[in-house]
């Protein structure tokens, strides 16, 4: 089971995302070195990680929105709606929920980015069955 425990004690359940989107975002921002070594992101401080990765905002939204299984409860969606973040886009709503209501600081943001990237890239190396047929 892929999980990430937050400082609050809450446990997030993670799943691998599609590699194409990660690659696209990292290449767009010149950090394709992270494709081979996502742990590099953890080798610097929380603030430096944010600075080092210009794509953090988008990358976070993608990884949190698509790579976390837990769904925001209705009352949190209402709070987000009051803050101006609509709930009708489920992936983006999940990312906003994590960013604004659940994660405490940049370190947790970075930990989540690195954790989802790690499980995505390690899953990609496992052989998969082709599902084709006539």
């Amino acid at each position: 089971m892929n999980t990430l425990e937050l400082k609050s004690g809450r446990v997030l359940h993670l799943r691998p995302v599609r590699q194409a989107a990660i690659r696209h975002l990292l290449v767009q921002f010149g950090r394709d070195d992270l494709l081979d070594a996502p742990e590099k992101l953890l080798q610097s401080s929380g603030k430096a990680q944010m600075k080092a990765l210009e794509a953090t905002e988008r990358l976070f939204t993608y990884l949190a929105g698509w790579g976390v299984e837990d769904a925001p409860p209705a009352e949190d969606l209402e709070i987000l709606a009051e803050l101006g973040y609509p709930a009708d886009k489920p992936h983006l709503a999940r990312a906003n929920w994590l960013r604004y209501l659940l994660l405490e600081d940049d370190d947790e943001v970075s930990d989540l980015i690195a954790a989802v990237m790690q499980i995505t890239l390690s899953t990609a190396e496992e052989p998969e069955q082709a599902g084709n047929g006539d």
Partner: protein
Amino acid sequence: MEYITTDGTRLEVGRVPREKIDNFIASRPPPEPPTKEVEVFGGDKEAMPILDDPGYLADMQRYYIAFGHDQVNLIADAVRGASDEPLAELEELREIGLGDGDEHTAWLRHIALGRDADLGNVVELVLYQSTVTEQGIAEAARTFAVTWMDKPVLSLGLPGSPGRYGAAFEARKAAQFSQYSWPEFAALPGPEQSAVVAFYRLSTRLEWLANQQR
């Protein structure tokens, strides 16, 4: 052909014109490694490629990333969703800078074929149906069932030759051998093209083996 992605999306996979594949490959030569001069037997100097050069490895990584990205453009016309392509998710992706351009290609790139394993499998299926592939050659060779002393002819090792040629050259030789014009050959379905190449390989090897017995 039907393909079901890891996420359960059903795709109809067809073929692309062979010429498009040939042009795609020809226009994307891989980066060349740097070389260093080394002394070889007899005191001559020879340029040896430095395959572990960090700059070269980085170039190769960028090359493969760009190649993978462009592959979706190559196959997009040949791959369709079996039902309507759901686009709500694409709208969300566009808000974070993904999925620009043509809707169908973006849907393939970031959703249906967003996982590398699916992209690889579907590219293989398109190539199999469009051009000569080793899979197609192996299938045709099994059908032809040509053996030499009870062993499949293509499994017999032959002495190497200093000459080297690309797959496109072998395909042209095979087309010529079976008296196809190049446009006729290129218009054949992929497995048929592969069968022509298998027939050519088997025939030339059989001839070589027979000559050794004389």
